[in-house]
């Protein structure tokens, strides 16, 4: 069903169309399919690109290992916090894979894996969560916006950046990531609306992982699906199985293609599940049962792809081992890097608040400098 077929869609509340009115030329239907789109385990899998899928597989295995390593680092006190994406790796990996070098990724705090999959050094991606600075990389260098902790506030940034790029005539698409909880925020609404009005080359990827910390989707929205929200803004909404990386890759690629060719924004709801707790501070047993978690574990993104590829003879034991070995190497390097204590300069606190330090900051910097010098002196005297 397209929006034009919706009951009452033909009736306009305007007496005459305003001059600026332009009918949508994009024929893409707005309403999502009733069921999440799937490729793996369906006849559609016949058209899979073996090389692409083997790359996806290696990335998924690496992503799972990254999640495990980061969680272990939290237990060791090396990270202040780590919001795991175990079970959601297909969303994170696909988001990074569909972007060209000049495109921009706008991640939320949970999306470090997407940033890593885009090529960011894992240590730089984890700087925020380790606590040595708020952003560990130059956003322009990697075309990855700072990980956003406030919910959905990075979405209007993605719209503005994509809009600016298009005004400049640059071929740039922005892909913005948000969780199911984030769709309740006002900034989500404003970003979707701006993107649609401006026909900005943006893709919104909503990872519906079932819970906003402890609050289930049913208490988050009364909409039939989150993808339905797109209709009201005048952009296509897509419902996709977030654990099916082939489906994710296909739907995201299509949305990026539409954005790039001037077709405007798309909103994608990836239905997935957060296998682990929100963070190490969360007790997931208080709000969900084991049976539900186990059911989702049986729908694991890595196993789904592995099953498909091995059944088709596109992946063998050697291929699986190679992916695991590469993941172990990444984990070992990450461990080593995170075990090195970061060298921090407290005087950095006063840098980059303004282009030019204010008198007030200069005074406060001098105060801290004196305190540091005194402490150093004391240490010297004591030894």
């Amino acid at each position, binding site marked *: 069903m397209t929006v034009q077929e919706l009951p009452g869609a033909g009736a306009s509340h305007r007496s005459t169309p305003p001059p600026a009115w332009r009918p949508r030329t994009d024929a893409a239907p707005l309403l999502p399919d009733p069921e999440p789109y799937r490729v793996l385990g369906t006849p559609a899998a016949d058209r899979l690109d073996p090389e692409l899928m083997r790359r996806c597989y290696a990335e998924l295995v690496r992503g799972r290992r990254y999640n495990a390593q980061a969680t272990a680092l939290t237990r060791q006190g090396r990270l202040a916090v780590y919001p795991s994406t175990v079970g959601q790796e297909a969303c994170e990996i696909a988001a990074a894979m569909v972007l060209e070098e000049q495109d921009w990724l706008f991640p939320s705090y949970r999306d470090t894996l997407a940033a890593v999959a885009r090529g960011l050094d894992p240590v730089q991606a984890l700087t925020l969560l380790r606590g040595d*600075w*708020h*952003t560990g990389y*130059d*956003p*322009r*260098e990697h075309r990855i*916006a*700072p990980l956003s*902790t*406030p919910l959905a*506030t990075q*979405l*209007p*940034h*993605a*719209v*503005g*950046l*994509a*809009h*600016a*790029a298009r*005004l*400049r005539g640059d071929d*740039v698409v*922005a892909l913005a990531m948000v969780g199911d909880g984030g769709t309740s925020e*006002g*900034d989500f609404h*404003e*970003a979707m*609306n*701006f993107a649609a*009005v401006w026909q900005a080359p943006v893709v919104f990827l909503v990872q519906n992982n079932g819970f906003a910390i402890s609050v289930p989707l049913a208490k988050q929205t009364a909409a039939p699906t989150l993808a339905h929200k797109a209709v009201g803004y005048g952009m296509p909404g897509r419902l996709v199985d977030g654990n099916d990386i082939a489906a994710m890759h296909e739907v995201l690629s299509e949305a990026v293609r539409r954005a790039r060719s001037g077709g405007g924004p798309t909103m994608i709801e990836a239905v997935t599940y957060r296998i682990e707790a929100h963070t190490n501070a969360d007790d997931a047993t208080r709000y969900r049962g084991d049976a539900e978690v186990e059911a989702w574990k049986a729908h694991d993104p890595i196993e789904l792809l592995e099953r498909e590829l091995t059944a088709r003879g596109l992946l063998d034991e050697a291929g699986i081992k190679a992916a695991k070995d590469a993941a172990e190497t990444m984990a070992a390097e990450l461990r080593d890097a995170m075990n090195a204590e970061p060298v921090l300069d407290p005087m*950095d606190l006063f*840098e*980059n*608040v*303004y*282009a030019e330090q*204010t*008198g*007030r900051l200069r005074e406060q910097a001098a105060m801290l400098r004196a305190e540091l010098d005194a402490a150093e002196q004391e240490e010297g005297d004591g030894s």
Partner: protein
Amino acid sequence: MTTVAVKTATTKPATMAQALNRAMRDAMAEDPAVHVMGEDVGALGGVFRITDGLAKEFGEDRCTDTPLAEAGILGAAVGMAMYGLRPVVEMQFDAFAYPAFEQLISHVAKMRNRTRGAMPLPITIRVPYGGGIGGVEHHCDSSEAYYVATPGLTVVTPATVEDAYGLLRASIASDDPVIFLEPKRLYWSKSDWSPEAPAAVPGIGKALVRRTGTSATLITYGPSLPVCMEAAEAARQEGWDLEVVDLRSLVPFDEETVVASVRRTGRAVVVHESGGFGGPGAEIAARVTERCFHHLEAPVLRVTGFDIPYPPPMLEKHHLPGVDRILDTVARLQWEN
């Protein structure tokens, strides 16, 4: 601080509104990265007509009517600035900016810092503020205390026509986000600024002594400057020769000019429309006391709006600092000749 060259205008800007318009027009003409955006800024030219003619002259891509959504406007401006544009955002009325506070405080103010200088945001946020125009609820707030309490924001407010032009040019040229507070009741104040007059005004971060005096210093800004100037004239009848300092820039705060003035006069009164408790005057009084204690002949006093929600139009005259209240406060500085 840098001094901003004020381009000699071909037509004399007669009002502050025209000077602001001219500043945006000149900035847009000089730099294609400058984009004006907000609700009603296009065909209408803004509800105060400050952006009048910009869409016509530079096109709708450079002067854009946005959806009515302040968080979206500022959030989109963040993304545009991330890509190298220099957005000039209009917030229409002081209290209408509040939906954008999350964007302002969590992103605009912090982006340079959290990216260690890699991603400064050159956004100018124009906020018509303050009362005295008979506006109804939510149209007359003095919201500067919220802005000055947020590290990373530069906060300026012109009180004269030449500063409206000069400070807005400096704000648009700044690589940091600037809250540009426009005293809306001065929009229609006339200028004695001649295009052939001095070609430059001091830039952001410099306070100016608008009137020299010896008895006491009135420290003020924005809409309260003309009130203070009038009070200073009236004070002559009492035998007081008041100095008037126009801050122009609340952040950075030009402590040196203020301190030098108060050390000369030995007495100080801070005047502003916003509430006193936790208002900018509290900070200024504290700083003046810290730096001038041994020069002070009297405690630093404040004349501010009351600590109440902005009153309805028919009562606002009782709330806003006026000449009499300023003079009564100056009298409390207790001269003994």
